[in-house]
């Protein structure tokens, strides 16, 4: 199934969905499948600053621990609190209920450098 084309994708398997100056961030189904059963998601707190190109959190599964990277800079305005008790939402619905952060951004231009849905699908099919 193709990934949703309403957002942009990074090479490191995060997605970024802009709505006005607000960007929702999560990881892709491909990344969630690779990690296997997700047991813990470590996210910044509301109000924290995230910086484009640096890591914003850690995701842990039975099998592996992985860092998550943010493509844009801004201030965290919301964190998905459900993930504390239901980290498995990232496995079952990574593009929906398994979202991670909402970030208020002043500069959305870095998103232009990311992959659109078809380009991301192509990348993972060549994996």
């Amino acid at each position, binding site marked *: 199934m193709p990934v949703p084309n309403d957002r942009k994708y990074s090479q490191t398997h995060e997605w970024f969905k802009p709505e006005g100056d607000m960007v929702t961030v999560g990881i892709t189904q491909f990344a969630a499948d690779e990690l296997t059963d997700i*047991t813990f998601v470590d996210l910044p707190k509301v109000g924290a600053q995230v910086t484009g190109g640096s890591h914003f959190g*850690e995701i*842990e599964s039975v099998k592996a*621990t992985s860092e998550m990277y943010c493509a844009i800079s801004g201030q965290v305005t919301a964190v998905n609190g459900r993930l504390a008790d239901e980290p498995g939402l990232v496995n079952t619905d990574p593009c929906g209920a398994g979202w991670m952060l909402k970030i208020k951004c002043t500069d959305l231009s870095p998103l232009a450098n990311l992959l659109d849905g078809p380009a991301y699908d192509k990348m993972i099919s060549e994996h």
Partner: protein
Amino acid sequence: MNMHQTPLSAFHRECHARLVEFAGWELPVIYTSIIEEHNWCRQHAALFDVSHMGRVEFRGPDAGRFLERLNTRNIAAATPGMCRYSHMCQDDGGILDDVIVSKFEDHFLVVCNASNREKLLGWWQQQRSGFDVEITDRTFETAMVAIQGPEALATLGQLLPVPLDDLKRYRFKTGNLMGVEYFFARSGYTGEDGVEIILPANLALMAVRMLVSRAEGLGRPIKPAGLGARDTLRLEAGMPLYGHELTADWDSLTAGQEWAVDLTKDFIGGDVLKRLKAEGLRRKITGFELEGKRIARQGATILKDGQEVGVVTSGTLSPTLNKNIAMGLLTTGLSQPGTAVEVDIRGSKTPAKVVPLPFYKAGK
């Protein structure tokens, strides 16, 4: 790199497994969910393809004497039909592998780790001079599956041509179906009851497909489980894994496996182990329970009052106990259960305490 495929490769694909490279073999790491597969094994019965493990026969007049020299465990005392968990060591006591030696009427079968098979084949060649022994690698002409879980024996009892109710733990029996030899051992690597079956490679796929579909038909499904669940299951059961708790960098006593070492007999590495036992161990594989949900992975430092006192060898979030567990090498002075330590998980110091092994023990 060319990976070996097991005789069950097509079965894994039919079951939509995610296949990964492991010790030179293409193997399923996960079919549906590591946690679901893990729980199915603890509650019902799961099937694992363990065909990658080495299966090597030892024959000839000196086979027993040769294995006695290689193994930490007393092999000579075993009677036909017995399986013995044992280690093989280097001269310096470093662990070469953990194996299961099965004694037949006229020969022995050694099952070893896939990652160590070639190393061991070379080691045995080096050590065999003076012994009249014939060593034959049967790995590629056979398949091996483990069926594990509280329902495993009852379900298999209804489906297999060989009665299993009289088979005791760590015993094996062979069956013969139209000239085809089957091997069933009541052993495993999950902490549950179950069997490990060896059968000819060319019949394994058909046999496993039939077994799984007929178990389904009985309303007692045997579900496939991958390497991911195999690791979490063995870890809860406190069982060591080569490359983690077992390595050539330390010995079987330090690995907490003294029960698998007979210090009254002679074997390669035995002098070192006897000396270590007399002097007392400096460190030992120990169980830990950690606070929080961040898993302590292999290599994480264990601290006491800010001082390094050990290193994590394996860790996971235990699906059965819902606890954050780990095994690690710890200074022996601190190994009293309840002792508070900290584990440095990627820069953050996590409170932990020493707990007895195993973490999980199956009910009778």
